[in-house]
C-alpha cells in the first residue's frame, strides 16, 4: 500500500509537471498568433513606399561623369525593361561574363553607363542608423517593386549559373567561425525560430519561396529599407563570420542558391518586417 501510494504521488507530480508544460505550450501558440496579428497590423503603410519615387527618379535621371541615366541598363530582359526583371535575378550576363544579382548588376551599370568608379559605387551601400537611405537602397526599392506579383524564375541554363548555384549551396552548408555556424544552422529545418522570428527552411520549396519573395524589406527595428545583399551581410555578421564583400561572387552565389530554391514563388517585395 505504501509503495502504491508513493507511486501514485509520483505519477501525480509528473502529471503536474506535464500540465504546466502544456500550459506553457498553449501560451506559446497564443504568442505566435499575437505576433501574426502584429505583423498583419503593419501591412498597410509600408515606409518602403516612400523610397519608390526617389528610386525611380534616380534610375531615370542622367547622373555620373557621363551624365547618363540607368534606363539603358539591361537587367536581363533587355535594355530599359524593369518590369519583372528582379524576379529573374541572379542570372548570367554575357557583357560582364558573370552571374550577377540585382545589386551587382546595378553596380555594373553605374560603372559602364554612368562612368562611376567601381570603388565609389560599392562604397557604403547600406544606410546606417539615423541616415537617409542610400541611392542603391532607393533604386533597389523601385526596381523590386516593379516585380511585385512576378513569378520567381532564377535561371539555371548557363554553366556559370549552375556553378553559382553549386558554390552557393556549398557556402550555405559551410560551418565556420567561433560559433561553428553555417546558414543551414538556422535555415535547414522546418518551423524553426530564433526568439519569435520564423526561420525559413531553404531545403523546402514553399518556405524558400515565401522568404525570397519578401526581400528587400523595410525593417521596422532599424527604420530602414534593407536589400538582399544587406540580408546576407547581416546573417554572416550574426554567424560570426568575417564580412562578406558587397556584391562579391560568393554573395551572388548564395543568392543564386536561395533564388533557385524559391523558383515558382511570387515576388511580394518590398515587404515590411520586424
Amino acid at each position: 500500500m505504501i509503495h502504491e501510494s508513493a507511486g501514485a504521488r509520483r505519477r501525480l507530480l509528473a502529471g503536474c509537471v506535464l500540465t504546466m508544460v502544456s500550459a506553457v505550450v498553449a501560451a506559446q501558440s497564443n504568442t505566435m498568433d499575437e505576433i501574426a496579428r502584429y505583423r498583419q497590423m503593419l501591412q498597410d503603410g509600408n515606409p518602403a513606399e516612400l523610397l519608390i519615387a526617389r528610386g525611380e527618379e534616380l534610375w531615370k535621371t542622367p547622373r555620373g561623369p557621363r551624365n547618363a541615366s540607368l534606363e539603358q541598363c539591361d537587367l536581363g530582359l533587355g535594355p530599359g525593361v524593369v518590369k519583372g526583371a528582379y524576379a529573374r535575378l541572379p542570372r548570367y550576363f554575357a557583357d560582364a561574363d558573370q552571374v550577377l544579382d540585382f545589386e551587382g548588376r546595378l553596380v555594373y551599370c553605374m560603372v559602364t553607363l554612368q562612368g562611376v568608379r567601381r570603388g565609389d559605387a560599392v562604397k557604403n551601400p547600406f544606410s546606417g542608423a539615423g541616415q537617409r537611405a542610400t541611392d542603391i537602397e532607393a533604386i533597389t526599392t523601385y526596381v523590386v517593386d516593379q516585380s511585385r506579383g512576378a513569378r520567381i524564375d532564377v535561371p539555371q541554363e548557363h554553366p556559370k549559373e549552375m556553378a553559382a548555384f553549386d558554390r552557393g549551396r556549398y557556402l550555405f552548408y559551410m560551418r565556420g567561425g567561433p560559433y561553428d555556424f553555417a546558414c543551414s544552422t538556422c535555415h535547414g529545418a522546418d518551423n524553426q525560430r530564433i526568439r519569435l522570428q520564423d526561420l525559413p527552411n531553404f531545403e523546402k520549396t514553399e518556405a524558400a519561396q515565401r522568404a525570397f519573395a519578401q526581400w528587400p524589406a523595410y525593417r521596422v527595428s532599424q527604420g530602414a529599407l534593407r536589400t538582399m545583399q544587406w540580408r546576407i551581410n547581416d546573417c554572416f555578421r550574426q554567424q560570426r563570420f568575417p564580412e562578406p564583400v558587397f556584391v562579391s561572387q560568393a554573395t551572388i552565389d548564395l543568392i543564386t542558391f536561395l533564388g533557385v530554391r524559391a523558383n515558382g514563388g511570387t515576388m511580394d517585395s518590398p515587404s515590411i518586417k520586424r
Partner: protein
Amino acid sequence: MPDPMRIRANAQQDGVDVRVLMSHEMETGQRKDGNGNIVPAHFISNVTVTHGGKTVLSAEWGPAVSKNPYMQFKFQGGKKGDEVTVTWVDNMGETRTDKATIA
C-alpha cells in the same frame, strides 16, 4: 529638402479615408551615435490636414511617434477629385507640404 509624403485619400461610403506616410527620422534625443554623443531630438511636432480650406485633422506629436510616421483617419464632406493637403512642421523648423487627389 525632406522627401515627399505618400498620401492616399479614398472616397468611401462613410467618408474619405486618408492614409499618410511621412519620411522623417523622428530622433528621440536619447540615442547615441558611434562616438557616444547624444543625437539631438528631431521630430515632427505638428501635422495639419486640410480639405477645401478647412482643417480636417491636426496633430501634435512628440518623439515617441515611430520613424517614418504613419496615420490614418476619416472625414466627411470630401468627394472624388477633391484635393487633400498635408503639412508637417518639425522641431528644427523643417517643413513639408504634399497634396493628393481623392480617388
